[in-house]
């Protein structure tokens, strides 16, 4: 065989053996995120849910308050009511769409805000240590020891219940966990040699916190943010249960579930309206699950050392 054949073969092998060079961190994160099937799936489902709740109501003429008295407790696939109706003849599909707007907004907003506050407190506390740490952590202890529900009841009595108040309460009482988590991480990152070496290179404290410490806690923070989002969606429903959450007739996934509880053993007429619990429950379930998938994928993608097994 001619010599050039071997030469070409060698070039080919060399080409294959050369490590892939990735141009930037952002590109690396995106490449890895794309290869994380579950996270991609989670992202697609969440976008789907978001579109469903945001755009869905535009395509139906019925509002969430409209009642169809000829159809009380009608099961799914009844004419005009694909998800059935509830005890007042509200269309469940429409209420799930409107309720999703509220649940997603409450979940997302309180997750973002608690994570933000918790991360800032944790960074300051862990990095500066000493008196700053002691003050902030004692404040966290105080906040943790305040019983949430009596305060909630008082607040709703004073300010009334509404989405903003719920978000306010969930964030005021929700950031402490993140701050403790972040503080613990920062305590160990602060002592690492790369932070020491950044200091020896003359990097300012502020820059060390933002460029060297923060990026290293972000993967964990993201996971805890997704957990917070799940928690907030569920907490909103338990607040509704106490009559402190979103008030009917305005729907949220939480208060739909809570009202369905009354009929969980069946109605006076003997039917068991399972669709009242299954549909909002299913949406809470897939949202929380996929938020967690997404968070998992983001964490793996943000850590350059992590190489997926697939």
């Amino acid at each position: 065989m001619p010599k050039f054949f071997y030469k070409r073969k060698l070039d080919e092998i060399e080409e294959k053996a050369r490590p892939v060079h990735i141009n930037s961190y952002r590109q690396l994160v995106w490449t890895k995120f794309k290869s994380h099937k579950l996270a991609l799936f989670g992202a697609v489902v969440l976008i789907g849910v978001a579109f469903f709740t945001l755009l869905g109501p535009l395509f139906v003429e019925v509002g969430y308050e409209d009642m169809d008295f000829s159809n009380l407790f009608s099961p799914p696939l009844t004419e005009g009511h694909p998800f059935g109706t509830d005890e007042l003849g509200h269309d469940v599909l429409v209420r799930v769409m409107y309720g999703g707007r509220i649940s997603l907004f409450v979940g997302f907003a309180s997750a973002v805000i608690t994570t933000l506050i918790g991360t800032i407190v944790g960074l300051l506390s862990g990095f500066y240590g000493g008196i700053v740490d002691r003050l902030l952590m004692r404040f966290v202890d105080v906040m943790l020891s305040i019983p949430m529900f009596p305060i909630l009841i008082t607040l709703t009595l004073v300010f009334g219940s509404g989405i903003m108040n719920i978000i306010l309460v969930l964030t005021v009482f929700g950031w402490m966990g993140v701050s403790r988590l972040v503080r613990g991480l920062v305590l160990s990152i602060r002592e690492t040699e790369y932070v020491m070496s950044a200091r020896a290179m003359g990097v300012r404290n502020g820059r060390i916190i933002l460029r060297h410490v923060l990026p290293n806690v972000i993967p964990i923070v993201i996971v805890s943010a997704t957990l917070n989002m799940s928690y907030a969606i569920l907490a909103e429903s338990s607040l509704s249960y106490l009559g402190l959450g979103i008030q009917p007739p305005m729907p949220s996934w939480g208060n739909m579930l809570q009202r369905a509880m009354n009929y969980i053993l069946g109605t006076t007429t003997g039917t068991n309206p399972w669709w009242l619990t299954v549909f909002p429950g299913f949406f809470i379930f897939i949202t929380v699950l996929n938020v967690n998938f997404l968070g998992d994928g983001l964490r793996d993608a943000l850590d350059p050392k992590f190489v997926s097994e697939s």
Partner: protein
Amino acid sequence: MERILEVDNLEISFRTQLGKITPVDGVSFGLSRGETLGIVGESGCGKTITAFSIIKLLPKNAFLGDNTKITFRGRDISTLSSEELQKIRGKSISMVFQEPMTSLNPLYTIGWQISEVYRLHEGLDEDAAMKRSIEMLRLVGIPEPQKRVKEFPHQLSGGMRQRVMIAMALACSPELLIADEPTTALDVTIQAQVLELMNELKNKFSTATIIITHDLGVIAEMCDRVLVMYAGQIVESGDIFDIFDKPMHPYTKGLINSIPKIEISKKDQKKLSVIDGYVPHPSSFPDGCRFRPRCPTAFEKCLEKPPMIESEGHHSVRCWLFEGDDM
């Protein structure tokens, strides 16, 4: 030779639960341009905090003694504001750390990390800084630097990472380089390469260098002068030939004797001599000579604090055995 660093009567204390402890006291030395000083001693002798004190990187509970004076290029380090210090760190004085595996931030490419130094100290924009970083990587002998800059620390071997650290440290051609056990974590062949590289670069930039190590081999390879430290004090100092050819302090002799020698034939093999015991904890330094409990030649006089005794040349030793010898 132009003196660039003068450390006078260095005393470092810590406030701890045990009360005040003073792991380093009475350490004085100086350094001229282009000179290499080795600080050698066992673990826990105070070598590393001595080095850290020069750029004020001590932990928060540490403080310097009243008579301590550290002068860098004629300026007293202790009077500098933290902004002035930040300008010195990484530009005029830089450090190479012991652990190349953990000294680089895992989240950034090595190019980003080297260019951070340029962006901070020379105000270069991203592209210019990256160009200089590639140059610097080429200089420390990293093949295909334009590709390597885009890699993350975990994609490099230990030796490569240490080269990157050296590149970062020398990026702004500092006047003083402090290398804290630069080769301890590397295997022997890589050690030799890294030492050779450091020798080459320090001659090129005529950087004054302080090398902290417990490896006398590294000292022999690199240094002009040596400080032997024990329990926070200098016990012997001199030029490299004095220390290796005519060691005086029993501790120095012990260190030299405990270097393993490669002997294959049975009759040449001797049991490796060791120095018995451990370095005492700073909270319980013995009275008098601190080496006394471990010293094979200790006598009654050693219960008193030995002074630094000047021998011929710049060779001096802290040991009563040499009292009145050449004074």
